């Protein structure tokens, strides 16, 4: 038996100092094992078969020839698969994603709906058999054509009310000296994490064990337990390393199909989505059609703000991409109207994707602000300063902190904004027209209840167990720093274990809330443990363990407008001969709470900004109206930014600790993308004199639009 001593607190803290990733060595040597990398004895391979019609019903499946193929063990489909219970609400407060409730009926609600799982001894056998399976459909006419003017559009509450209205919009617009009234569109976008969704399921001693790649192991365990009507204690989901998620990795078809097959065959089964299948089964960001009307006095002060957004959802599930929500935070006006509406089409269900709502919403709103600045003859930053609200424009609640203008000041200084000539189409360098643009960013700062377990080991080290997920965010490392400070020890004495539902309920990695929520729980448990040790408690061989649960503490938070803020700056070059847009440099300055690990935080901010480049210039999933499926559903047809698309991108932050969080964290996962596409679009206008209100700003859109400069 030993007695643990803790270090006297010193000025030297781990939080705020750069630390390479604790699992970094495993990741650069290939030793880190992701869900599809973990071997099992007797593992069988499942391959999903997806519908080839966009609407209808399955008439029959010709399973006999497939069952006779080498190595084939089973074909699961709606006539023979285990029944599951989809009539429940998951941990996130919504019913299960219908695409994940596989093989329960003969209806086909969209192209790419899972209709069967072929299981075989090897992946080659499973793939060939899946491709050989003949499925007969009764096809029905489908509608996949999205537009903001679709006759079936209706208002839909998501996690916020669909509609907010204050003041007489038409009267204020009529009384405005300057009016902007424009439509903005964003296309269907896909998360496209580098690691495809993968899960292996097996029964072990009466327990269901699933090795998965997800954004919350207790979330997935709870979902599977409810679907299969199992005691929650009898389900264990592990997800140690996750190759990116961005909102796409929850309970989905592959885990459910794997559990069904493992149950039927009583042996381990792995199901991995192909890249092409991910375009149908992994969720996506809905296209949006947004109309913005701004009315202002000649000095730029807003009298009227109207932000209306329409997105699509499927016929089997309602999902709202709340793009108009960002206006409820950013700017006030005497008349202030916002609305999120949806239309149901015969398409897969969209889902959360990095900065849901804010990413497309900020493109429209911040581009419209830039148009207003132009019309008023006011600098875009000054326009925003003149419209800085004192309280939440819709809620009336105070901001916990709002350091937007400080971000603009610091960003403008570093970017060299003061020297900018606001007139468009003036700067030319060979065949390139040059321009700069800016935009504001915001994202909600929240926290969700979590539990954590911290153990003082007999050898003087500490083990933290929490069902967190590290999708590449650096959470594992950040939590190590947080735990070290809370325990008042150096980081080398702290081991953080994550990604295991047996560690107890915890917030998911999502909504920029993961690290904050987990850090809160760890701080609480570690603080209590430190106090016990300070009293001289002897550490027995099994260690001393303290558990925490932050449900009450988070529930007691005062109602405020809680957000991160930021200022985005971009410089672009537009090729007048080809229409190509190059982002030469970007700078983002953020006020996003205390930064736990500057090394990984910078990576996350910059990564978000690169998503903004990609959103502004490249990403667009195109749906074929005739078949109802995608054109080019792969990484050649769906272009995400690669090395050559990314030049100088810098991110930095100002001091902005959240006073109501034990560590001062706000969350940084999404804000990097917010406003980034608008800053680029505004820079393209500054370069060319032409507004591009539809993303992406493709060469074939830039060329016919021409340039104001060349026409002049």
């Amino acid at each position, binding site marked *: 038996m030993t007695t643990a001593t803790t270090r006297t607190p010193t000025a030297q803290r781990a939080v705020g100092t750069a630390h*390479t*990733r604790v*699992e*970094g*060595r*495993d*990741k*650069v*040597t*290939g*030793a*880190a*094992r*992701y869900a*599809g*990398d973990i*071997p099992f004895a007797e593992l069988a391979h499942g391959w999903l078969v997806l519908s080839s019609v966009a609407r209808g019903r399955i008439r029959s499946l010709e399973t006999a020839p497939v069952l006779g193929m080498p190595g084939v063990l089973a074909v699961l489909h709606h006539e023979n698969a285990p029944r599951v219970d989809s009539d429940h609400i998951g941990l996130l407060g919504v019913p299960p994603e219908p695409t994940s409730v596989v093989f329960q009926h003969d209806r086909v609600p969209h192209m790419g709906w899972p209709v069967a799982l072929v299981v075989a001894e090897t*992946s*080659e*056998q499973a793939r060939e058999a899946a491709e050989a399976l003949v499925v007969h459909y009764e096809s029905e006419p489908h509608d996949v054509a999205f537009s903001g003017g679709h006759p079936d559009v209706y208002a839909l509450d998501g996690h916020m009310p669909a509609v907010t209205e204050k003041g007489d919009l038409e009267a204020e617009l009529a009384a405005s000296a300057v009016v902007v009234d424009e439509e903005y569109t964003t296309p269907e976008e896909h*998360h*496209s*994490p*580098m*690691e*495809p969704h993968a899960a292996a399921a097996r029964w072990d001693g009466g327990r269901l064990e699933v090795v998965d790649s997800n954004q919350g192991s207790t979330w997935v365990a709870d979902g599977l337990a409810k679907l299969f009507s199992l005691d929650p204690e009898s389900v264990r989901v592990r997800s140690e*390393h*996750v*190759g*990116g998620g*961005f909102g796409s990795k929850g309970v989905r078809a592959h885990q459910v199909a794997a559990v069904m097959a493992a149950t039927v065959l009583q042996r381990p089964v792995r199901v*991995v989505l*192909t*890249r092409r299948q991910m375009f149908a089964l992994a969720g996506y960001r809905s296209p949006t059609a947004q109309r913005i009307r701004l009315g202002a006095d000649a000095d730029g002060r807003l009298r009227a703000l109207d932000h209306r957004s329409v997105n699509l959802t499927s016929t089997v599930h309602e999902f709202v991409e709340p793009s108009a929500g960002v206006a409820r935070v950013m700017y006030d006006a005497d008349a202030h109207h916002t609305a999120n509406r949806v239309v149901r089409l015969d398409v897969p269900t969209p889902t959360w994707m990095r900065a849901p709502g804010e990413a497309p919403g900020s493109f429209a709103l911040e581009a419209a602000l830039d148009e207003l600045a132009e019309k008023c003859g006011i600098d875009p930053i000054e326009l925003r300063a003149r419209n800085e609200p004192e309280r939440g424009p819709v809620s009336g609640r105070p901001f916990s902190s709002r350091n937007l203008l400080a971000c603009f000041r610091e960003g403008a200084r570093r970017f060299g904004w003061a020297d900018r000539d606001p007139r468009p189409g003036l700067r030319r360098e060979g065949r390139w027209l040059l321009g700069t643009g800016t935009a504001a960013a915001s994202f909600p700062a929240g926290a969700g209840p979590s539990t954590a377990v911290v153990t003082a080991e007999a050898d003087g080290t500490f083990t933290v167990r929490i069902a967190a997920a590290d*999708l*590449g*965010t*650096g959470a594992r490392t950040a939590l190590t720093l947080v735990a070290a400070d809370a325990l008042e020890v150096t980081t080398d004495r702290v081991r953080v274990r994550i990604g295991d539902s047996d560690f107890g309920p915890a917030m998911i990695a999502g909504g920029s809330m993961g690290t904050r929520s987990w850090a809160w729980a760890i701080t609480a448990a570690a603080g209590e443990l430190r106090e016990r040790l300070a009293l001289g408690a002897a550490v027995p061989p099994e260690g001393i363990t303290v558990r925490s649960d932050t449900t009450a503490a988070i529930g007691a938070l005062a109602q405020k407008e809680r957000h991160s803020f930021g200022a985005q700056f971009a410089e672009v070059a537009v090729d007048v001969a080809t229409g190509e847009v190059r982002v030469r440099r970007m700078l983002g300055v953020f006020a996003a709470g205390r930064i736990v690990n500057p*090394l*990984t935080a*910078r*990576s*996350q901010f*910059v*990564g*978000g*900004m*690169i*998503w903004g480049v990609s959103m502004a210039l490249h990403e667009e999933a195109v749906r074929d109206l005739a078949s109802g499926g995608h054109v080019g559903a*792969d*990484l050649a047809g769906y272009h*995400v*930014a*690669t*090395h*050559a698309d*990314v*030049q*100088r*991108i810098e991110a930095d932050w100002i001091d902005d600790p959240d006073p109501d969080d034990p560590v001062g964290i706000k969350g940084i996962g999404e804000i990097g993308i917010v406003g980034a596409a608008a800053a680029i679009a505004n820079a393209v206008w500054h370069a060319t004199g032409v507004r591009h209100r539809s993303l992406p700003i493709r060469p074939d859109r830039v060329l016919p639009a021409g340039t104001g400069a060349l026409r002049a």
Partner: protein
Amino acid sequence: MAPSTSSAITLNINGEKFTLTVDHRTTLLDALRERLDLTGTKKGCDQGQCGACTVLLDGRRAVSCLQLAVAAEGREITTIEGVAEGERLHPVQQAFLDLDGFQCGYCTPGQICSAVAVIQEHAAGWPSAVTDDVRPEAGPPPLTDDEIRERMSGNLCRCGAYVSIVQAVARAAASEEQDKGAAA
């Protein structure tokens, strides 16, 4: 007699010989991952578009998802597991680690294998699409950030770690150059 659908092959991987019987449809990627437990090489798209499965074949980069295992016999195969020298990380690996040239880490083995070969290709004088002077006598162009970006563009990183990957490749190339200078 039905035609044979599998063959016994010997693969030379990271300096070690592996003998196994493979289905002729098996890609080199699946042979590494499913048969030899060398799971450091990642499957991102399985169709040659993302670069996550990049390995070195006789020192040159190749996407292992588009190579059949039976066709890799007789080649010197280097995977991410064979890049380091024992416990000592390769300069590219060390630079990725120190400069945070990754986030989720899934594209990282492919990025690192690619970078190792990029540095060699550049040193051997190979031009790229952004090289100004492509005459053989011009010698290797300066390894600018644009050169690195162009040469690394077959490796996608959805987390967007590109800025620090380019820094890491530049640092590793400079340190190898320095080592060579010291050895000369």
